[in-house]
């Protein structure tokens, strides 16, 4: 049996490749995080442990105006992006799931297109849109929020629709049989069932916005609309101090925490699904 399950000779060979791969993919980032805590100006020579690039009096994330501005702007964009993309995306997911008529196929395709369009194409398209069609909006914060919403919308729709499919129509039908009006079916049956998916979608949107680079860069106007990703791009090669590693580490911690939250909520889906299955049988 063991021989049978193993068509490639010793799986140790595969295990070695896998271990090497994981080492190669994770260790460089860990070292970059480590150098954020370097007690010196070098990003290549270890000079002892310190928090100076996070909280020190000069040039740290906490006290350098450029770093602090970039971090604040990144969080501002992410907040607005979540506030706009989540409700519009949830509504679109609900609509697309139940709307089976003329035009729904087209909308379905268009909704998925931003997921496969190379970011530079979206960046160029939105740049020209705000330069030539909506010069009143122009480049800057508003354009950046709109650009990020345009592609995070698709993530929200995909996540929420996945949950809608697994819920099925039974709960709404049961509520209707028991005399609940459409409003109650929506707000007291469907939306509570969707809550974990909505939280997960909001978290993914938040993290995607923080990590976004191309669209945000194309739609920025000046130094005041610089984000952490843009700062990494512009100063990675010339960067004077480990403060860049420090601000990257702050961004990393924020996205990892957000996505872990999303993952934990998502995992509750399994138990939620089981509960749904049991409840369906009860009905």
């Amino acid at each position, binding site marked *: 049996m063991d021989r049978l399950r193993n068509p490639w000779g010793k799986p140790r060979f595969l295990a070695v490749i896998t271990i090497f791969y994981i080492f*190669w993919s994770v260790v460089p980032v860990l070292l970059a995080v480590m150098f954020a805590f370097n007690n010196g100006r070098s990003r290549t020579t270890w000079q002892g442990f310190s928090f100076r690039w996070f909280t020190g009096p000069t040039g740290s994330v906490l006290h350098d105006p450029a770093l602090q501005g970039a971090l604040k702007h990144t969080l501002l964009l992410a907040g607005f992006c979540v506030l706009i993309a989540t409700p*519009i995306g949830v509504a679109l997911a609900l609509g697309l799931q139940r709307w089976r008529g003329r035009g729904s196929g087209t909308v379905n395709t268009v909704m998925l297109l931003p997921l496969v369009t190379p970011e*530079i*194409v979206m960046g160029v398209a939105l740049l020209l849109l705000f330069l030539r069609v909506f010069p009143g909006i122009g480049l800057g914060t508003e354009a950046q929020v709109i650009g990020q*919403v345009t592609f995070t919308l698709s993530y929200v729709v995909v996540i929420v629709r996945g949950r809608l499919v697994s819920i099925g129509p039974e709960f709404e039908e049961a509520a209707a049989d028991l005399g609940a009006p*459409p409003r109650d079916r929506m707000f007291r049956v469907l939306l509570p069932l969707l809550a974990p998916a909505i939280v997960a979608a909001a978290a993914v949107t938040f993290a995607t916005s923080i990590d976004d680079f191309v669209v945000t860069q194309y739609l920025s106007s000046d130094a005041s609309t610089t984000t952490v990703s843009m700062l990494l791009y512009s100063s990675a090669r010339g960067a004077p101090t480990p403060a860049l590693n420090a601000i990257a580490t702050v961004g990393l911690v924020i996205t*990892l925490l957000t996505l872990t939250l999303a993952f934990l909520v998502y995992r509750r889906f399994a138990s939620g699904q089981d509960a749904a299955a049991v409840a369906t049988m009860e009905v």
Partner: protein
Amino acid sequence: MGSRWTWRTLSLPGVAWLSVFFLVAFYAVIAVAFGNQDTLSQPVPFWKPWEWNVGYMIDTLKNFWHGGPFLTVSLRTIYFVVIAIALSLLVGYPVAYFTARHAGRWKGLVLVALIVPLWINYLMRMLAWINLLAPGGWGSTVLHDLGIEKLFLTLGLLAEPGGWLNGQPTTVILALVYGYIPFFILPLFVAIDRMDWRQLEAARDLGASPLSAFVRLTLPLSVPGILAGMVLITLPMFGDYYTADLVSASTQTNMIGNQIDEFMRQGSEKVTGAALTLLLSLFLLVLMFYYLRTTRRAGTQAAEA
């Protein structure tokens, strides 16, 4: 529940948003590519197809002719992407295969390790390598001490000792692999993980050698996963400009994305930039729709199952 109008009304804000900020925006690229520019070199879009000016598009296409600058950049881009994808397959397939079939009780942990890079900012991952490969960095020291640097110098894959970040195609290709391979491994893992292993057992029972069972059964069955992973990383690689900018910082390694970026964001040749963007989109359109079709089919199959 409710009338059909409820669902259409719910879809309305999203549909309106995508129409304006995706479809109209993309049409703006077309209108600019077939438009003109004013005296300040700002693009002037021509919205009506019957007024289109094909002059800039023809000039752009001419630059693809015999040794033209866009031809060089495009061929280089294809060359980089093809090698990067081949390397991703070479490393990614064994990893996905091992995780799906042989990881045993470590499967969950290995899977987390495969997913975590997807959660880390791409630019941070590039920054990590810039720190490591800078002169005196830990990475260049290790590569030197292990003799890898010498090997690369001998093979002509590196121009000068310690010059990893000085316009080296090798570094750009390896950085592309590092950046995108997690996106390749995951769909491949899913495809291999879902395979029906009873077929393999049947093949072995009927006398197939391990090698022939792999070549004639496992490999063909993983082709859809391999293709999905390849398309998934091909699309962003063709639009990439930041990787080459960051790890090479030389026009000698410019990809088509760098060319577009120079025209759109830095220079004042936005009309030519829009024409190039349009040509790139047309080139990638087949791949985009192939991917949408396969994922949708997988979705309906999953829904039916």
